[in-house]
């Protein structure tokens, strides 16, 4: 059998979505950003909404997200993406608007913009990448850094008495009446990627309902910032991040999901 006999539509098992550009990803090998970018673009392709979607990139590692996503994009000031999205959506209510934000961006400097966009129930989608560290600036302590976790500004581990506690933004915004769908996912295994993609699809579909904000947290590893190999980082994430930031749906269709149900959903 020759190569040309193999390259046929019926044999196609994987292809890159055309909505991802051919630019070389600036992310470290092992990072969850690339996978998350891809599944968002796949959802946009599958929903056939490229001409109706605008993404908002934050400050942080994903500041250059617009280099990789073949859609109209805005780069927002640090933490302000939900406000930018609010302005955009309010003048274009029929478009699909999403923000893509890291933990420093969303849960530290942009806490106010995040909480108020969620509370107003802006009809947008927020994708929140939580890796517990400031990746781009070189691995400093983030608002989501775990207690005892080492970073370049908590070199002896996060001392919660002195440095404060990690903040669970996703649980926090789920309590607000303006959110319709709140979930926490991961992208470190094929199963997790499938579930995360389903969550992102739902978060985008929700914009058609005009019933509030959809919030998808992706717990991700930052092996460079954590000073681990990609495999070690995924293992460390499962053992340390997931117990503190448990995966699963927190709020569906405006209703809080009980912890028991949530765990059932996340079982492989």
């Amino acid at each position: 059998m020759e190569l040309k006999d193999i390259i046929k539509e019926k044999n196609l098992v994987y292809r890159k979505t055309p909505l991802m550009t051919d630019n070389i990803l600036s992310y470290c090998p092992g990072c969850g950003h690339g996978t998350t970018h891809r599944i968002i673009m796949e959802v946009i392709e599958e929903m056939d909404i490229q001409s109706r979607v605008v993404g908002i990139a934050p400050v942080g590692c994903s500041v250059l997200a617009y280099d990789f996503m073949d859609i109209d994009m805005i780069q927002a000031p640090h933490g302000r993406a939900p406000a930018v999205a609010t302005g955009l959506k309010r003048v274009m209510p029929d478009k699909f608007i999403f923000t893509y934000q890291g933990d420093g961006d969303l849960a530290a400097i942009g806490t106010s913009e995040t909480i108020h966009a969620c509370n107003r129930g802006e009809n947008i989608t927020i994708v929140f990448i939580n890796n517990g560290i400031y990746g781009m600036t070189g691995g400093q302590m983030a608002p989501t850094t775990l207690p005892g976790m080492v970073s370049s500004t908590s070199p002896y581990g996060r001392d919660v008495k002195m440095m404060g506690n990690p903040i669970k933004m996703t649980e926090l915004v789920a309590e607000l009446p303006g959110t319709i769908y709140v979930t926490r996912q991961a992208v470190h295994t094929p199963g997790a990627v499938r579930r995360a993609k389903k969550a992102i699809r739902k978060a985008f579909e929700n914009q058609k309902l005009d019933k509030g904000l959809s919030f998808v947290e992706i717990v991700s590893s930052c092996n460079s910032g954590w000073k681990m190999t990609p495999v070690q980082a995924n293992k460390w994430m499962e053992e340390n991040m997931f117990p503190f930031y448990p995966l699963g749906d927190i709020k569906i269709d405006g209703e809080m999901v009980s912890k028991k149900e949530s765990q059932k959903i996340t079982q492989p």
Partner: protein
Amino acid sequence: MKELRLMKGNEAIAEAAIRAGTDAYFGYPITPQSEVLEYLTAEKPHERTGMVVLQAESELAAINMIYGAASAGRKAMTSSSSPGISLFQEGLSYMAGSELPCLVVNIVRGGPGLGTIQPSQADYFQATKGGGHGDYHLLVLAPASVQEMADFVPLGFELAFKYRNPVMILSDGLIGQMMEKVELFEQRPRATEFDQSWVTTGKTSDRERNIITSLDLDPAGMEKHNRHLQEKYKKMQQEVRFEKIMCDDAEYLLVAYGSSARVCQKSLQLARDKGIKLGLLRPITLYPYPYQVIYELTDQIKGILSVELNTGQMIEDVRLAVNGKTRVEHFGRFGGMIHSPDEVLLAFEKIYLKK
């Protein structure tokens, strides 16, 4: 239909915003400009024109909502007063960097810090020299009447879209709060006639994706972008606007803008009554600044008094304009105090006529 009304400066701004076809206003309450947001929410502009009005959770959020709406190529505006304008600076720097049009109104109050709620012109440097980080300029309009408060709204949008640059109306609590007769212009459409090829409204198959950003990690690219911005600011110089009052035979000149110019107009009358040949140059655009016309006046002028509601900011531009050819001094009350016409004349006489 043109319409005459007695209005506060702040109300005139708000009514003009609706009539100018503004797409969105995002704001946060602060004295002495809260009437703008109050008027807009009471007026239901979404019913009149489809205009969006939203009270933001902070000035930081408000300016970034503007950033979002402006990215869609819409006419977006906000208003605030000095402490709030300080919080706008991050967003304004980003918008100048990514070349977004918008209109920002500053109803200046005395500072620094929380300062006072009374009128001041202490934000001149911040408004005209950039304000936020980086090499950039806002185009700055300085109304001296409630009529100009209204008229500068559509003018501001026109300039903002013409140059894809934030425009600021720099006024103060005096003009914001006082009532005057205003002739309101007719309702204009929300659409703009300017180029919209750059907007982020969703990538269609007939074009490449549009990106709104002020980031370029390559310093050579960033230098190039800065050169482009400077070229634009050079082109903006043609927008310079000013008013010459009794300058033809003037031997001395007052330079004042906004509410200070209103006070100085009376000082001029008092001076003329005493036989002093005093003129007034009122810059209407503070950026670009009318350097050339001030320079040309130096041939006939023995001295200039820069009269400002601050401790001496615009005087630096007046000195740049005259380039050492004429003596330039400053007079002004500050911190929320307003000079009287007599005070200005007395200060002028003390400095230049040695009285």
